[in-house]
């Protein structure tokens, strides 16, 4: 099938639509709302994969957004208000992944992202900025029984997410493989996980592969710094 034929274009459009549905599943939005409520007095950074999602969330919750399209003046203002506590939540796609110091952020919610380990660790690093008495929590929401689940597994192949410290792996070992080829040492959840199904109960759920298309919130990296 040629990507320039009508069929090819339709197939690509269907692929993008499938990704969009997985990234912004209703259960995810519901889970995000519960997490926002739970941490309403903290400083929360919400990460998404694309700008469309982040703008959609902003329109839904009327929460502030920082993307590459945000005017510099507004960006400075939003970061200052976030630091002072006037704004408890910032939604972003990738622009806050790296290079921006937001030491006051102590809760990170990854709503969607790529399979890049580097990106995931960078996002974790946003909330692990040192501050006295700070306890940082990272949540990852992903749709079970979807390609996104495998992507989530891939991007957590880093020692920051291991329960026991692992020897440092070389770049080749970190290179992500096909989605359905989860390494044997990653078949079981590796860190302390918190499963939040549709009813948002905090009881651990079954294995991620056995669950239906519901949102899963995990906190693999909950650390005190």
């Amino acid at each position, binding site marked *: 099938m040629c990507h320039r034929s009508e069929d090819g274009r339709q197939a690509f459009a269907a692929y993008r639509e499938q990704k969009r549905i997985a990234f912004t599943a209703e259960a995810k939005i519901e889970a995000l*709302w519960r997490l926002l*409520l739970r941490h309403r007095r903290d400083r929360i950074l919400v990460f998404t994969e694309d700008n469309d999602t982040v703008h959609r969330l*902003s329109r839904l919750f*009327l929460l502030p957004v920082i993307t590459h399209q945000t005017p510099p003046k507004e960006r400075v203002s*939003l970061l200052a208000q976030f630091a002072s506590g006037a704004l408890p939540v910032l939604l972003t796609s990738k622009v806050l992944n790296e290079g921006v110091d937001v030491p006051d952020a102590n809760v990170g919610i990854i709503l969607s992202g790529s399979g890049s380990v580097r990106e995931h660790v960078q996002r974790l690093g946003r909330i692990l900025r040192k501050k006295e008495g700070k306890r940082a929590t990272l949540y990852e929401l992903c749709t079970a029984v979807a390609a996104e689940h495998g992507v989530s597994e891939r991007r957590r192949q880093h020692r920051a997410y291991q329960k026991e410290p692992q020897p440092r792996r070389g770049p080749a070992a970190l290179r992500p493989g096909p989605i359905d080829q989860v390494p044997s040492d990653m078949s079981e959840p590796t860190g302390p996980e918190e499963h939040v199904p549709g009813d948002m109960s905090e009881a651990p759920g079954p294995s991620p592969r056995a669950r239906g298309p519901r949102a899963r919130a995990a906190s693999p990296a909950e650390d005190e710094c």
Partner: protein
Amino acid sequence: MLTRDLLVYRRVKGIRLRPTFVDPDDDDHIATAGALIELLTHAAGEPRGAVDEAADAICGEARKVKVARGLYKLLTDRCEWDDPGDTAMELRAAAFARSAAVLRDLSEESSLSDYLAAVAAGLPRPLADVRAHLYDDLAEHRRLLSAKLPSPAALLARYNLALAQGLVLYAGSLDVRAPSPGPLELRKLLRWLRFSRLVAEVRRDGDGWHLRIEGPAAQLDMQKKYGLQLATFLGAVPVLGKFTVEADIDLPRQPRARLYLDHKDPLKALDDGPLGHIPPEIELGMASLGDARWTLDPMPELRHVGAAGMCVPDFALRDATTGKSVAVELFHRWHRHALLRRLDELAARPDPHFLVGVDLSLAKDDALAARLATAPQVFTFNNFRPGSAWHRCSSRSATCSEGQVTCPRGHVPADSVIRSRSRPDRMSERSPRRPKPAALTCPRTSPRSRLRARRPVLTCPRGHLGSDRTALRVRIVPP
């Protein structure tokens, strides 16, 4: 201008760069260009996101997708989109402040609808309206107001030029050689050189001319702006009948290469119109001057400066009463070395009908400021906006025209005597056109050491020599 991802070029033998020009008579390209122009012709009032989506479909069907995307980019550069201003930003600020306050006071059992109802109660507009206009300032939501659309053939010609311009943005240097240009064409090119404010060296090369221009890669700052100006200048080169262009290209993450262009390439000049383009800033400045005595001459004669240099003044001011004109050359922040060279040349060979305008940012440098303070015929400007810079320029021109000598504080010698080391009659014998530099000094206060100096030394009766950055207003009267 094309962005780097839209440039199409190939490397010959690893080092030679050749843009992959399109055939302006190719039916497929003409059809694609026509479809894109047709799309934008009927897209007035449509949001940019929708227009881009429709253009994507056209580009996807083109035989060369990258070429089609480049054509669309050039077309959108000619479009004007509406600007909602700060309205959307203000709306967001109000909405986010309200939502933060509400979120903090909620209980953990609150529902989303409770939250939204509480937020909506404190918003300046209905919730649905706020949501609809929250991001009106995003590019994809801006609506097309108007577009200056070319014909398909003109668009393809512009595309070919843009391919070369896109590479020149990464040039370290650019050499233009014209074997035997006509005087009008050469003049137009040199005018563009000045208007583009480039750092260049112009030389006679037998019967032809050789222009060596510094590229943005050789600049320490303002690279993007300088690169755009160089690319704009390249658009004027095809006015020369025959030419060759060579440039060192330093593309990011690629080995250095050399670009070769000549008149056989399908390059068409940006402006085929008559001579006499005047930059809007200069037109505005003259309008703001409001002085009927001075008229703007946008095409002054080329001037010889120094031993072998050639100068193309930016403009000239013609005195309506005497008919004399004073040429003005402007030096911007990237012209530091060129300015120093010009000051040396003027010191060695003063030109009484020549003024040097210096960007204030250059005068911030102490060493250069001291140099400017002792140099005659200098005035400063800041972006050459209408205002004081124009008045300084015209007042300098007036003194050039009238032959007065004053100090920066306005002290005119009581006896109005200007003593010159060189007698006028001897000067006229040596060189009637270019008088030897004369040392002018105030008769009351000049030290003898000043008189011995080679450069013109200017003081006033009260000794205000170089006490501020402005130079003495002086005219060295030719015999």
